[in-house]
């Protein structure tokens, strides 16, 4: 299960303004009635993009010049609320490779990293400058350097924050931990054997 190492993300950006954008907004619950994640990208931010009749509400994601953007720029505490992996899955399946925000909710960050979605945090002033640069020029390239935790756009480079654990697993292509977890079968058995409530019920 070797995965593609992720050292850089380069692409055009789109700004979805607002703080505390929660997972119910990212993917409304009624679109989670699915048994696979396929097609979830179509419902990203559904309730703020389309009205009840399916007409565009002029959301930034639907601006023609933003088609194909791969870097989503938002506000503080992005991805708060539920543990639903449907949220980062919808973002990834809509074509995004990175989210840039002032901060991230914890479970959202963990879920995203597992999928190889880079979540870079920027100081609020830097985030405002990046948002302005992206808003001003739909063709501007946003370049994220994972190892250096930096974001470059419009000729300026900003120092961001990406925890070391996330940087390492992204760069090594080990962001999905399953292979490493599976490799320790004996240690799992030994730990379970020491815990009465796990061991006792063993059949």
């Amino acid at each position, binding site marked *: *299960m070797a995965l593609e190492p992720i050292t850089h993300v380069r692409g055009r950006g789109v700004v979805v303004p*607002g*703080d*505390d954008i*929660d997972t*119910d*907004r990212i993917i*409304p*619950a*009624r679109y*989670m*009635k*699915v*048994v*696979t*994640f396929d097609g979830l990208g179509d419902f990203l931010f559904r*309730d*703020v993009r389309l009205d*009840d009749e399916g007409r565009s509400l002029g959301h930034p994601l639907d601006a023609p010049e933003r088609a194909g953007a791969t870097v989503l720029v938002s506000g*503080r*505490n992005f991805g*708060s*609320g*539920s*543990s*639903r*992996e*449907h949220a*980062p*899955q919808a973002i990834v399946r809509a074509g995004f490779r990175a989210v840039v925000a002032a*901060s991230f*909710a*914890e*479970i959202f960050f*963990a*879920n995203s990293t*597992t999928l190889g979605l880079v979540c870079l945090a920027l100081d609020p002033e830097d985030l405002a400058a990046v948002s302005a640069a992206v808003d001003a020029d739909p063709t501007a390239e946003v370049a994220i350097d994972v190892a250096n935790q930096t974001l470059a756009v419009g000729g300026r480079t900003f120092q961001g924050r990406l925890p*070391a*654990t996330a940087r*390492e697993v992204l760069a*090594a292509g080990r962001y*999905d*931990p*399953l292979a*490493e*977890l*599976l490799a*320790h*079968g004996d*240690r*799992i058995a030994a*730990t*379970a054997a*020491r*815990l*009465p*409530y*796990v061991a*006792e019920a*063993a059949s």
Partner: protein
Amino acid sequence: MHPPRHLFDKVWKAHAVGTLANGQTQLLIGTHLIHEVTSPQAFGMLEDLGLPVRVPHRTFATVDHIVPTDQRSEPFADPLADAMIKALQRNCERHGITYFDLASGHQGIVHTVGPEQGITQPGTTIACGDSHTSTHGAFGAIAFGIGTSQVRDVLATQTIAMTKPKVRRIEVNGALGPGVYAKDVILHIIRTLGVNGGIGYAYEYAGEVFDRMTMEERMTVCNMSIEGGARCGYVNPDATTFAYLEGRPYAPNGADWDAAVDRWRDLASDPGCAYDDVVLLDAADIPPTVTWGINPGQAIGVDEAVPHPDRVAPSERASVLEALAYMKLEGGAPIAGTKVDVAFLGSCTNGRLSDFREAAAVLRGRTVAPGVHAIAVPGSTLVKEACEREGIDQVFKDAGFEWRAAGCSMCLAMNPDKLVGDQLCASSSNRNFKGRQGSPTGRTVLMSPVMVVAAAVTGTVVDARRVFGAATTEA
């Protein structure tokens, strides 16, 4: 002699399988709970990889989010919901997983079923693909929500990769005023520390207020830890915990019970242990609390005014304006008196027997205000039956509430119970996000069950003490 340690450290250490290359801990998950929404993709991934479920007897399933609460015969009217329940059943059968299905009589919201079956126990690690897994911390367990890829990891290995959080002790001492409930305590904590305040922390709830709480009240508090940004929250196990668990189907029995209680007692935080942070709150400062905005931290005492955008910190202004516009509330105006269209009593926060008992005690002999749609939804089939044995269902029906079957119902919009248009709902649930209750413009005001009843009978957000008198709402 060990240096004094808190419960979190002891439980974490006992479940640590090893350290991964990136420095995270491989943590054994002793108890895995699953439901229909976040598990089918995980089983799909497992099958794609050709992997079995490693410890099927430590995974327990039920169905809650998508079940209709009125007409429950299968197939469901909604083909998507029907496909989801069939997928869960198939996956449980194929892998030998215990499934509390609709026919079992034990179905309910996953966070209600775990405790009432005695599956939720002190000193355990509990994971579920649902953020309100923090509920189970009420028993002194480390319990947290996980994403679907991690559900796959638990199925395949019974472990996950996790970074150890810091631990903050939140101590609330003194006595709660009359008409102040566990729900008010946690809304007050989130209001005080903020929706981001708990990021990177596990919360230990301690002090006189939590010592005196019943298990159901502790569950209400731990349930909403996640709304304060903390991935989990717990209360140290004590005599209240053991009394609740004794005799439950999955609790240890006989000599095993005594041994378990001895072990559990030792797990409680040692006196004098060190915490990464300590917050002290006074119970007397906690009013009956309601939310006015679009996240659970946007909360005020029911007698207070909604924040005025000109009188908040500049960094807060944009979010206050956004919340006021969405909620159609006027900054600076009192929240009391706000017209209510829907009253919802239920959810994993406040859908247990004690919630319905308290609500029925004040509702008896009163009627729902004209124009208010009121529904009461037990958190589990066992709660529903217990209510019906006590005649509580009749109190609700006589008052004009709809009495429903167990499920998540109007807490979120994955079943037929939904707000319509910009209806405003007085809700005993845990989230007031935009669109949470099923309409993209629907509005949610979170509050305690007794306050929901007060809202139902008056048709407005109101201080329950003014409606029922302080004496009848003695907490």
